[in-house]
């Protein structure tokens, strides 16, 4: 079923795009990650121009998060205060990301930078998550209890001034910590076309020390609003948001997200985390190979 995309200027198989959205939506519902880290590379691989892919993937992540946020809100696992601080940081970060994007683009190094960022971020976080979840699994199997972590958040976080109470996260920390975290994910959202969930979830767990139950809901809540801001920034600056492409991705991903949320409730969080760690490492490994291997295309064309 071929359909012409009016902004991307090419025709695609609608069913392939819907299926792609479905898989990404499933992951987004299960893990609380936006799934942009899969959508953008897959769309580019399919032949969609990179800018259109990143811009349209952002709105797909919005749609996938809405249903996720709603399910989590119904279960009371969203920390609105924490989410609000993260969103403020995210919007600032997205603005900085636009400037950085333009600078790298004029130097012609945006592709390489995206590749290196993916490998470093995904590789580092994937390893961290894999280590943690394997320890948890071993503890589960042997029946030995893991030593409860005495210090719940990173010492640097504790050193920041001005403390707020985040009830649902079970935290009493400075709002500057989640704000800076928000800025970092905002920059990544603009540069990589990802929601930033794969950074946010582990950072909230291991750096801020949030309670596991509220992490997924709160990260989805932040992703929802930051991707909305990013979609608008793309529509205003790059004019590369393809509504037809976004629509196809959305049909798949909103359905997938519902199924994913249900699955996540019936699987132990330890297994979920090791699965996510595996997927993240897989993508990082593929990107690392891509940097070192001779690329399929030596030449690239940029139309002025």
């Amino acid at each position, binding site marked *: 079923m071929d359909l012409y995309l009016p902004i991307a200027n090419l025709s695609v198989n609608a069913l392939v795009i819907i299926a792609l959205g479905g898989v990404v939506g499933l992951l987004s519902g299960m893990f609380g990650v936006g799934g942009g880290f899969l959508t953008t590379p897959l769309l580019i691989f399919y032949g969609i121009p990179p800018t259109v892919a990143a811009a349209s993937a952002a709105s797909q992540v919005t749609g996938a998060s809405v249903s996720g946020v709603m399910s989590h809100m119904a279960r009371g696992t969203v920390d609105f205060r924490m989410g609000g601080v993260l969103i403020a940081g995210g919007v600032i970060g997205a603005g900085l990301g636009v400037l950085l994007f333009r600078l790298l683009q004029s130097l012609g190094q945006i592709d390489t930078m995206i590749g290196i960022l993916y490998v470093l971020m995904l590789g580092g976080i994937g390893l961290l998550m894999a280590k943690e979840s394997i320890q948890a699994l071993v503890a589960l199997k042997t029946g030995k209890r893991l030593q409860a972590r005495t210090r719940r958040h990173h010492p640097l976080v504790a050193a920041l001034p001005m403390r707020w109470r985040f009830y649902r996260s079970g935290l009493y920390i400075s709002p500057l910590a989640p704000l800076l975290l928000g800025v970092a994910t905002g920059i990544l959202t603009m540069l990589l076309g990802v929601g930033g969930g794969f950074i946010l979830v582990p950072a909230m767990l291991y750096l801020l020390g949030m309670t596991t139950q509220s992490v997924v809901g709160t990260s989805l809540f932040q992703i929802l609003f930051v991707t909305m801001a990013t979609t608008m920034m793309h529509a205003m600056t790059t004019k590369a948001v393809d*509504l037809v492409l976004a629509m196809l991705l959305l049909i798949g991903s909103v359905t997938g997200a519902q199924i994913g949320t249900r699955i996540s409730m019936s699987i132990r969080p330890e297994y979920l985390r090791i699965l996510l760690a595996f997927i993240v490492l897989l993508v990082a490994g593929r990107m690392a190979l891509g940097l070192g291997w001779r690329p399929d295309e030596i030449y690239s064309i940029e139309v002025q």
Partner: protein
Amino acid sequence: MRRAAALCLPAAAWLLGAADEPVLVPDVSQREVEILYSFTGADLLLFGAIVYPDGRRPDRPADVVVVLKGPDQSITMREKKKVAGIWVNADRARFRSAPSFYAMASSRPISQIVDERTAAIYELGVDKLQLSPASLNDSAELDRFQAGLVDLRERAGLFVERPGTVEITDGVLYRARLPLSARVVVGDYTAETFLVQDGRVVAAAVRDISVRKSGFERFMAVAAERWSFLYGLAAIALAVGMGWAAGAIARRL
């Protein structure tokens, strides 16, 4: 006005030049190509007649070359090289006039019809395109970049060469089919026809073809460009609306 002139031109040329040179009367199957939701490319038929003065046909049959060209683009090409174990964009070249689309068909392979120089003058063949380099690269480098451009565009179906596919019937009627890829950009295209006799281009004629989006596709492209804020809002509303609807339906199930 321009259209009227274009229509009168072959007729006038026929009357004026009737004395010695043959005249081409070309046409295309579609003057306007409309891009709709189901657009997966188009096949254009370029056909026409060769009108010889006094109806006398030459002893040796003439050759016909048809070229379909899209709007020129100003482009920057980058070349990847391995630096410290990583493939990065190293060299680059800028070209002011690279055609976004180029398709050529001829009655015989170009090298058998005209010499290198004539092919270069009339831009017959993807390796003969004049790209107007705008950066300071040496000629070996420019050749490398041009080869890279041709390779990329050929695989995207944007550069097409079909030697030996122009059919000439009884030496006076010709026809050729050229494919228009689904990835074409919108704009004004030209279909040029050249009549070649003994290595010399003896007649040439041009037809304009306009490729444009229509209906919903056109509305979307215009909206994204002109009303970008509203377009952005629409994108967000669509995403939130569909996400909300899916959530609402799922809770009922």
